[in-house]
């Protein structure tokens, strides 16, 4: 049920608003999606940064719960349905990907320019050869190409790798069987891995 919209502020600031936008989006409003994006993006970024700093205590949110946290924080639990959540996780995974890739690019640039991080001799070498940062960028690029062949697999990789969901959670979100998801995942990985290996054989 879509509520009649009275004049609302440009940036939603409460769980109710996010839910409202989600509901509108699932009714087909593209405008709602656009309004949703910056809001969710900021949250993603914040959470990702925390994750990257790494918490070393037990009971803390593992990376796979990252999007859960996002979901819990942003969405009014009472009003959403299962299908909204699937949509939400989809967006969140995409955004996480964006956030992490942007971060990787920024860090890489910093290192190259000798930014505020202490750059040891070994670290300088990293910049040229493979490092987690460059790996991520490569994956992102390859993933884009995979998406053109198989958009479903792209979603699965986003959910599993960038949002950190387990196979079961991914299956749950997409409404497919875990078996199917597993197989798709295996194929997607195989394809991506092959792409990256071939690339790295060439020049950097």
């Amino acid at each position, binding site marked *: *049920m879509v509520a*009649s919209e*009275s004049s609302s502020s440009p940036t939603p600031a*409460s*769980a109710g608003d996010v839910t409202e936008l989600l509901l509108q989006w*699932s009714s*087909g409003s*593209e405008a709602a*999606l656009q309004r949703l*994006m*910056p809001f969710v993006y900021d*949250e993603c970024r*914040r959470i*990702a940064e*925390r994750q*990257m700093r*790494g*918490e*070393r*205590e037990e*009971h*803390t949110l*593992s*990376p796979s*719960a*990252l999007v*859960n946290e996002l979901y*819990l*924080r*942003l969405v009014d*639990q*009472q009003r959403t349905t299962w*299908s909204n959540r699937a949509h939400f996780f*989809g967006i969140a995974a995409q955004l*996480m*990907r964006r956030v*992490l890739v942007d*971060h*990787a690019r920024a860090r890489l640039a910093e290192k190259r320019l000798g930014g505020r*991080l202490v750059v040891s001799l070994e*670290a300088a070498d990293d910049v040229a050869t493979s490092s*987690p*940062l460059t790996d991520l960028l490569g994956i992102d690029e390859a993933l884009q190409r995979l998406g053109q062949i*198989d958009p479903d697999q792209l*979603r699965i*990789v986003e959910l599993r*790798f*960038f949002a*950190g969901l*387990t196979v079961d*959670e991914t299956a749950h979100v997409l409404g497919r069987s875990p078996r199917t998801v597993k*197989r*798709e995942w295996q*194929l997607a990985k*195989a*394809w*991506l*891995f*092959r792409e990256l*290996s071939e690339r790295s054989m060439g020049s950097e």
Partner: protein
Amino acid sequence: MPASASPPPTPPPIPDKAGQRWARIKAVFVEALEVPENERSAFVARACEGDTTLAEEIESLLASEKAAASFLEAPAAGLLGQDAPASPRLEPGTRLGAYEVTAFLSAGGMGEVYRARHTVLGRDVAIKTVSARAAEPKANRRLVREAQHASVLNHPNICTIFEVGDAEGTPFIVMQLVEGRSLRERLHEGLPPLATALRIGSDVADALEHAHRHGIVHRDLKSSNVVLDGTGKAIVLDFGLARRIPQVSTDLSRDSTLTATGALAGTLSHMAPEVLVGGQADARSDVWALGVLLYELVTGELPFTGRTPFETSSAILGEPPRRMSSRVPLALRLVIERCLAKNPNERYQHAADVRSALDAIARRNAWPLVGRLLVSTRWRRLSAWGAAVVLVVAAALAVPRLRARLDSAAPIRISTLAFVPMETDASDSTSLYYAQGITEALIARLGAIADARVLAPASAARAAKTATSRAELAKRLDADAIVEGRLRRSPDRIAVDVRLVEPTRGRVIWSDTYERDTRQVLALQDDIVRALAAEVRLTMRPGAHVQPEPSRAVNPDAYDSYLRGRFEWNKRTKVSLERAVAHFTRAIELDPTYAPAHAALADCYSQFGTQMVGAGSPRDFRPRAAAEAIRALQIDPYSAEAHAALAYVRHYEWQWAEAERGFLRAIELNPSYPYAHLWYANLLMSRRRLDEALHHVRLAQALDPFSLIVNTNVGWVLTIAGRNAEAIAQLRQTLALDSTYVQAHMRLIDPLEALGRFDEARREAEIVVRLTNGSTSAMASLAAIDAAAGRTDDARRELGRLLERARTEYVPPGAVAIVYAKLGDTLDQDLWLMRAYEERSNALAYLLADTTRLWRVDATVRKLIAAVGLQ
């Protein structure tokens, strides 16, 4: 900016050649994985039917799959995390300000902890540093600020912060060195004895209270943050995540903490639900964490767990805590459950109260003879004869003083007894509450066992005020005899002089005095009830619940609060309801096993969620009401008030059959309890069983003839039944009792409108607006009557203003729906009815009753009627 996400599922596009090829690759690939490895190549070759390029492609993918076993299995964020440089450990001998590091102690989330020594004073301390990984100028500044705030805390159970220093841009915090093991570690080895657990809980609660008083919330209280030192004293660490309680009052708002720093700080296992969904942490979320801690202390486990963080957070948000062993004393279980209430408003609001509760339990356990916690009630099926025998015998045994017969005339058959308000010799408020409370209790008890009609005290009080003689009073109330009483109180004792008076000639039939220790006040009531029942030869009801001997003591302070609560509740205004809630809550805090307080609290909450009072959404209040009613029933399954309270909630949750059963049970247990009949009448109205509804509401009226709500509801039922003129007369009579009674004015609007007397109806609406200072319910009524009278523009304008208010205040959706109905805007009517449905508003229960008069009945309304289960 991120690219737009894929829209909701659309049918898949027809695959082109490349797409078809990929589909084939996938199909063969997937099947090939099922085949044993040594047969794979052959299988692939067969499946590709000679297409060698296809087969090569698939083979290479299969090979890649093998090599990629761990590829991408670790989430991306973790990958990037590895990139950050590890923070160098400080070596012993490193100087940090005036301190010298002597040893590394542990690594925490944000940094490390070292043991250090002041180079001049020689004092051993602990120093916490912020790791380079977490280092970020803003975060550092925040940490320093928080440490400074926390450093004002000076309490034996709190790890003191001495100072905050700076070493080349990295801050460090110097704190009290606490040597010992964390509670968590100790619990791994086994559970402490109950007394110890209570003491630790009490100490931690005390620490929290101290911090809260200084405006600091811990935010990350957990068993690994509490250390037991050498003497076993509990010390709370790590107020490092603490922050100042914000000046703005924090209600259960769901605002994301976008602008706040430090997102979801805190540990999941001990996180309160409102914090989990991004709300502000405040004293009450600390109370939650305390509840988790207490749970751990008595069970050794966590109350909310799951295989994944998602499951855990779902449990925190929606599941009750895992059952505690019955070895844990009931009182303690109730304390813990209260700390773990999902809604922060239902928890202890102050850590100090948790402490009092724990201390009280500790004392009680130490003195088993004083105040047994369990209510022992035995149900006996007695024949009327047998009961009388038991009663007389018991009365003879229990009555401590000789009875004085002042008139030895033949015994009278009394079928209606009226209690006039008890007098007291003192004028202090406590005595007044006691007097009223005991009177009410006597009435309730007597009503439960005797086959007599016992009139409610408020009505009797009103009549007593204006009656010039006893005879007149009795005539007004239609009573055969009057009970008068006098209360005398001293700090430790209570005495009640009771007189039974025959009104026509004013002769005293019987009198006696009962005296007991204050703790035995319930038993005192028992004594009086038994004696009265025996004395007036009231017929025992078959199967009535009899307690031949006193079964429990009650905490006098709890009883005191309970009485105050009843005093306020009888006033039935929003403000007095709020006060009543506070009193009942206090009573429960002091004695969680006193059932009547729970039932009374349930009633308060139920009233808050009504459309009339409009204090908030029923969604907020009804669960609380249900919880309290259920708790009351757990303690005393024979409480008519508790059954009625629960049935009331069930009615508005559309559980028709259960609600009806509950009301009937309440009536069975105490036919003189007016609210059981009143609310049952409401239920019957919902089901459009109007004759029965009228019967019960009239019964309620007979029991409580001067009650404003009862009289108003009689008018309401008459309106629904279409007897508008009678309804108006009844409601005007009600207003003659009290012209400021809002609900009566509100109920007048409908019958007046039905008779076309729009101006009078509007006047009533205006009065309500004035009396309530423009409450949203009132404004809605005004708009509705304007719409009905044809003043469409006015109505729309008022509606517009109401909708504006809806953005910040609670507006009962049912009320808005009515306005649209009158305006003929069926679509909007439906929308708001849907909202009312989502909210489970009370209004929906009367959909069927109101169809002919109020709503435009379209498909949606019919669907709603079906959804609610009305027909």
